């Protein structure tokens, strides 16, 4: 199994959710994060002081799937999250050794 972590633009969350849903993915976990990257930040001004804010709001979507699904999931996420402008984000794939569903104690693919 693998965990696919996608860092996306916040307003793309609904599209990504739909896309994953359409693949039959039943669950995902979402975190508000701040991203630093090539996309330039913006200036903020408070009375005298100017600050360059280079951490931008992003959403991290985490979804654990069986390994055979990984490529499909990646394709779907790209299709849904892409705007073509800088800062669209990244996808990271990492290995997952075990999955457990807390309610039932089911393990691994049954638990997804």
């Amino acid at each position: 199994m693998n965990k696919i972590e996608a860092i996306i633009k916040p307003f793309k969350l609904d599209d990504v959710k739909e896309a994953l849903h359409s693949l039959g993915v039943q669950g995902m976990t979402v975190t508000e994060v701040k991203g630093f990257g090539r996309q330039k930040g913006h200036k903020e001004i408070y009375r005298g002081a100017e600050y360059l804010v280079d951490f931008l709001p992003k959403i991290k979507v985490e979804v654990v799937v069986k390994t055979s699904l990984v490529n499909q999931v990646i394709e779907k996420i790209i299709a849904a999250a892409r705007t073509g402008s800088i800062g669209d984000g990244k996808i990271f794939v990492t290995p997952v050794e075990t999955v457990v569903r807390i309610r039932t104690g089911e393990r691994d693919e049954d638990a997804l």
Partner: protein
Amino acid sequence: MNAADTAFVMISAALVLLMTPGLAIFYGGLTRPKNVLSTMMHSFFLMGLASIIWLIYGYSLAFGPDVGGFVGNLAHFMGHGVGTEVKEGLTIPHCVFFAFQGMFVIITPALISGAFAERMRFGPFIIFTALWITFVYAPVCHWIWGGGWLAKLGILDFAGGLVVHLNCGVAALVAALVVGKRKGYGHRSFIPHNLTLTLLGIGLLWFGWFGFNAGSRLAADGVAGNAFIVTHMAAATGSLTWVFAEWILRGKPTTLGLASGAVAGLGSITPACGYVGLEASLVIGGIAGVICYMAVLAKDKLGYDDSLDVVGIHGVGGVWGTFCTGLFASKLINADGGNGLFFGDAHQLLVQIIGILAVLIYSAVITAVLLYAIKAVSGLRVTAEEEELGVDTSAHGEVGYNL
């Protein structure tokens, strides 16, 4: 000079001033967090801009010596003649009358700003409201309160059902149409980001509205007292009927429904409060809560994006209240007022309807002209990217929250 009336009107003016910050947080709570400051800025900026216009020429256009029933002349340019002596026909200093009326010219365009929240550019907003005060607010105010043609016809608008509510509601409709929908409107969700602000906002509005309505008597007497209590009762009834209507239709009574219903009741009683009694206030406020709710529901079908429902609440409430004044007004409540249809004078109702149509058409046409002109010259909206990033950051270089 009457010191009690003077004290009462000064405090009332302060209460009306407070309504604008109250409106700012009412509105601010309803936007997405990335636009809370720009939305509040509309109201707060008008506390400056509208006041200065008022001083320079706005007051004079509205309350200066009549020119053809349409507008005042510039006799009071730069506050000329507005001093500490008693204003003719009143019991309070002229400057206190000037101050009291000067609070209304702030909140009226501030109300409009709810229609184009989250996407209007700040520069064009300034131009638009400055022109709107000049070409819409000041003349309409003159027609009704400054001795203009509607006043001569005998229109009854105690505290601004036409001057403030219908006027801003119509302008809001035009603005929502001309400025266009927010990006994603209809498929993304536009959920209020902080309803505690909105609830506090309705608290301050309700509080300030006592100054708005009772203060419009410009004297601390029984008519003011009547205006006070019917204002309260209409707010109470409006809040309840809206909540029960949505409880029935949608299965849940909401706090936003309560706040909206209170505003609907308050807006509707505004033209009537100095002329109608307690039973009438229940009818006016209670029905306002339902029809304004229906108007808000209808918006989705009609398909314009009036972000904060100025049309459904203030526009519809303003029409309803002005119409009802023509039904329920009674000289038993206020000998200086008139009798409505139910008290024997059908003519009053006719005058009210003329007033509604006149303000509706005038405000719609001039607002449209102003907005299309500004659109042609400079555009009205932020860019798509700025809208995505949020107007707070893109236009003002600030963010609301760093929690």
